[in-house]
C-alpha cells in the first residue's frame, strides 16, 4: 500500500512507515528516549531524503513522548520542576548546537563528525550503562542493597549556590549543574539530530542520583518540549517537515509508546538500564561497522538543493 509524501516527493509503503513508528515508539516508551537515534537512520535507509527525515522525526518524538509523559505523570514519576530547569539549559544548548552544525557543514566534514561523535558517545554511554547495571544486578543477586543512592555522599557540585529541592526526584541540588546538563544534551542533540534522551537519562541517574523511573519520566517531559520546538524550527528554517510522513509515524509511535511504557514499568530498573545500554551500544557498533567496512558503492550523488 503506497502513499505519496508531498514534501519528500516520493511514494512510500505506508505500512512499513507505520510499523517503524510502532517499533520505535515501543522503545521510546520503554526507555524514555525519543528514539531519534534509531528512527532517523532507518528512514534514510528506506529512501527518505536525510533533510526530510531529520526534520520530520521530531514531531513523531513529540507525540510519543507526550503519551509517555501522560502515563508517567499519572504515576507521579515526572519531576516538572527539574524538567523546566533542564529545558532552560536545553534550549540554549540547542541554539548553540544548530550554530556549530552550520559551521561544520560549511567546512564539509559534517558527516564524519556526526558519525564519529555517534560512535564515541554511544559506545561510552552504552559501556558505562552495561557495566553499571551488571554490577547492580550482581549485587541484588547476592542479596545486597543497591548502592546507587548513597545517602550523605556529596559531589563537588553540591556546594554550588542556587539550590533547589526537586521533590519527585528526591534531590536537593544547585540549578547550575542541572542547567549545564540540559545545555550539553541540547547541544549534542541539535548537532547529531537526535533528542538526546539516551544521554540525559544516564546523566540524571549517575550524576544527579535521580531514581531511574523519575529520570525516564522527566526525560520524556523534556523531550516533548524540545521536539515541539525542533519541529517548528525545522519547518521555518528548512521547509522539509513532511506532515504525511510525520502523521503516520505519530500514530504508530503513540501505539508503540503506550505498550512500551507498560513494559518498561514492569521490569526492574537495573534490567531496564542494562537493556538500554545494550541498545545504545548496538547502534554504536552498527555505525562503526559502516565506517570500517568497504562500501559496495564508493560514490554517492546528492542534489545540492537537498544538501543546503
Amino acid at each position, binding site marked *: 500500500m*503506497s502513499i505519496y509524501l508531498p514534501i519528500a516527493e516520493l511514494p512510500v509503503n505506508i505500512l512499513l512507515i507505520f510499523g517503524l513508528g510502532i517499533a520505535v515508539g515501543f522503545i521510546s516508551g520503554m526507555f524514555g528516549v525519543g528514539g531519534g537515534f534509531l528512527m532517523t537512520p532507518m528512514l534514510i535507509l528506506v529512501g527518505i531524503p536525510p533533510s526530510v527525515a531529520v526534520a520530520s522525526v521530531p*514531531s513523531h518524538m513529540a507525540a510519543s513522548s*507526550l503519551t509517555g509523559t501522560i502515563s508517567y505523570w499519572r504515576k507521579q514519576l515526572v519531576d516538572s520542576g527539574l524538567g523546566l530547569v533542564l529545558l532552560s539549559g536545553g534550549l540554549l544548548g540547542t541554539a548553540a548546537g544548530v550554530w556549530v552544525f552550520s559551521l561544520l557543514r560549511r567546512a564539509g566534514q559534517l558527516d564524519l563528525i556526526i558519525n564519529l561523535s555517534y560512535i564515541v558517545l554511544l559506545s561510552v554511554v552504552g559501556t558505562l550503562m552495561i557495566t553499571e547495571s551488571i554490577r547492580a544486578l550482581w549485587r541484588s543477586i547476592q542479596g545486597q542493597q543497591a548502592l546507587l543512592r548513597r545517602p550523605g555522599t556529596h559531589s563537588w557540585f553540591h556546594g554550588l549556590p542556587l539550590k533547589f529541592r526537586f521533590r519527585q526526584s528526591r534531590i536537593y541540588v544547585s540549578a547550575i549543574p542541572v542547567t549545564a546538563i540540559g545545555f550539553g544534551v541540547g547541544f549534542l542533540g541539535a548537532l547529531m539530530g537526535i533528542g538526546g534522551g539516551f544521554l540525559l537519562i544516564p546523566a540524571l541517574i549517575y550524576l544527579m542520583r535521580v531514581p531511574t523511573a523519575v529520570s525516564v519520566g522527566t526525560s520524556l517531559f523534556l523531550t516533548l518540549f524540545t521536539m515541539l520546538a525542533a519541529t*517548528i524550527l525545522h519547518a521555518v528554517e528548512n521547509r522539509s517537515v513532511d506532515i*504525511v510522513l510525520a502523521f503516520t509515524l505519530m500514530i504508530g509511535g503513540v501505539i508503540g509508546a503506550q505498550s512500551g511504557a507498560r513494559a518498561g514499568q514492569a521490569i526492574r530498573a537495573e534490567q531496564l538500564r542494562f537493556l538500554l545500554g545494550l541498545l545504545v551500544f548496538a547502534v554504536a557498533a552498527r555505525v562503526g561497522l559502516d565506517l570500517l567496512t568497504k562500501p559496495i*558503492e*564508493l560514490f554517492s*550523488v546528492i542534489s545540492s538543493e537537498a544538501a543546503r
Partner: protein
Amino acid sequence: MIFRKTAAVFAIALMLGSFIAPIAHAERLVTSLSTHRVLISSNFTGTSLVLFASIEDADTPRDKPKKYDIVITVRGPATTFVTRKKERILGLWVNYESRRYPDTPSYLAVLSNRPPAEFGPVELQAKYKLGLSFAALPPSILADEEFGNALLRVKKAEGLFYEETNAVTFLTPTLFRATVPIPGTAPTGPYEVDVHVFANGVLAAQQTTAIEVVKTGFEAFVAQSAREARLDYGLGVAFLAFVVGTLAGLVFRRN
C-alpha cells in the same frame, strides 16, 4: 549606379537570408503525447508517457520509404548534482573527493530504435546530445570519467536516468510509438521532450514539446503551505503531534 548598389545589397541580403533561415527539411514531424500534465496525487507511484509520432515526407515515393532512426530525449528540471567518493583514511571510509555537476537534468530518459552509435559518428552524437552521457553532461566534464560515470550509474540505479536503445517501435515505416517511464520519485517541474529523426545519419526532422509534472489537490496544498506559510505549517504539525499524543493518552487510559 545607385540602382546597382541597391541590387548588390539586395543580393547579399538574399544570400545571407538563405544561410540564416533554418535548413528546410523535406520531412515534417507530427507528434502526440498521451498527456502534457502528469498529476501527482496521494496514490501516485509513477506513470508512463506514451508518445506517437508520424514522419510526413512529400518527396519520397510511398512505395520506397526511407529508413529512419529516432532518438527521444526527455529532460526534467535542471539541478546541481554533487558526486562524492569515499576513501579509506585512518581505517575509516569517509567522503573525500567530490565533483559538482551544475545544470544537469534531474530526470533524464533517452529512448531510441537502435544505439545512436550504430547510425552516426561520435560527432553527430555530441552535436545533437544523443545517448545518456551526451545528454546528461557537457563533454568537458565527461573527460573525468570516474566521477561522471558514477553519477550516471547511481542515477540509473535510482530510476531517474533511463536509457533504452530498442524502445522506439515503428508501427509503419513512418509512424512510431515510444513509452517513457516516469518513476514515483520523479522531480516536479517542467520537462522537455525532444524528438530527433535521422535518415542515413543526417538529421531529417526535429521537434520539442514541453510537459509538466505537478502535485495536485492535497499534495499541492501541503507543499504550498510548507513553502509559503512556514510558521503556520510548523505550528500545525506541532499541534497535530500534541493532539495525537493527548488522544492516545486518553484512549489508552480507559483500557
